[in-house]
């Protein structure tokens, strides 16, 4: 047998389910169409201004290729100059070792183990 509280719960559930039709959405903006057309105009003018002139579009791949070449040149120049500095340093150490009659371990310590 059902308890009185079960009847009350069932009653509340049914009343709630009946409220589908009484739930009216709020009225819509009376200027909806005007706002909509403004938004469409804004979006299309935004799309127009975002479109770049043909020569910018044509130059883009060229600019990208130029940047890549420039990067490769800079890397090549940096490594080769580091090599030149390193070999000049070794010549100086060798000259110093000969001049002062330094042994192998002194030369090694001076050069930090480089080129040994």
């Amino acid at each position: 047998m059902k308890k009185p509280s079960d009847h009350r719960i069932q009653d509340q559930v049914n009343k709630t389910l009946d409220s589908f039709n009484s739930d009216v959405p709020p009225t819509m903006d009376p200027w909806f169409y005007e706002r909509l057309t403004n938004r469409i105009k804004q979006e299309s003018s935004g799309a127009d201004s975002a479109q770049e002139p043909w020569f910018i579009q044509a130059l883009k791949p060229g600019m990208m290729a130029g940047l890549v070449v420039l990067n490769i040149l800079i890397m090549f120049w940096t490594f080769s100059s580091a090599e030149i500095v390193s070999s000049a340093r070794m010549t100086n150490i060798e000259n110093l070792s000969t001049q002062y009659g330094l042994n192998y371990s002194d030369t090694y310590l001076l050069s930090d183990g480089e080129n040994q």
Partner: protein
Amino acid sequence: MSSNNRIKAENEFRDIVSIHQERVYSTCYRFLRSREDAQDISQEVFIQVYKSMDDFRGDAQLSTWIYRIAVTKSLDYLRRQNRKRRLGSVKALLGIGSDEHEIDVPSDSTPEGDLMQAEQSRMLAWAVAKLPENQRVAITLNNYEDYSNQEVADIMQTSVSAVEGLLHRGRKNLKRHLTEYFSTRVNYMNSPR
């Protein structure tokens, strides 16, 4: 496009908006439960209609196509909101930013008259929001917006019998959620304090 054709297309678009705007807005509102969001998504629906009018093949009814866009856009918006909410919860757990998690549970106050009615509507909306997505779509379109089963089937791109199944399971789940809610409330009220 010549100016005559443009004027014709603009008039056609104005007619489409004026015929369907109320129902599109109402449908979006049922899913989103926010006036501003519903206005915003309704605008997006008609912008898509405007952009795709030339692509509309006419193999479905224009109204079905428009309402399908409205449902899809509303559900997409809800999914984005849910993702944001989940991210907000994770951030709150990690102590980053504020916890913006909204718990959309009806309040326990049950005032009389109109407020009672408003409370019932809120509870119903809460229970509908807890349904699985396809049941929620079918129930929302059929029960709130009075779309026929055939219309719901066309919008959801499924069969009428599948819609009937969704509606049956949806109503059963609604009853279950509401019964659970009211039972908890009755138990809470009867418990000694």
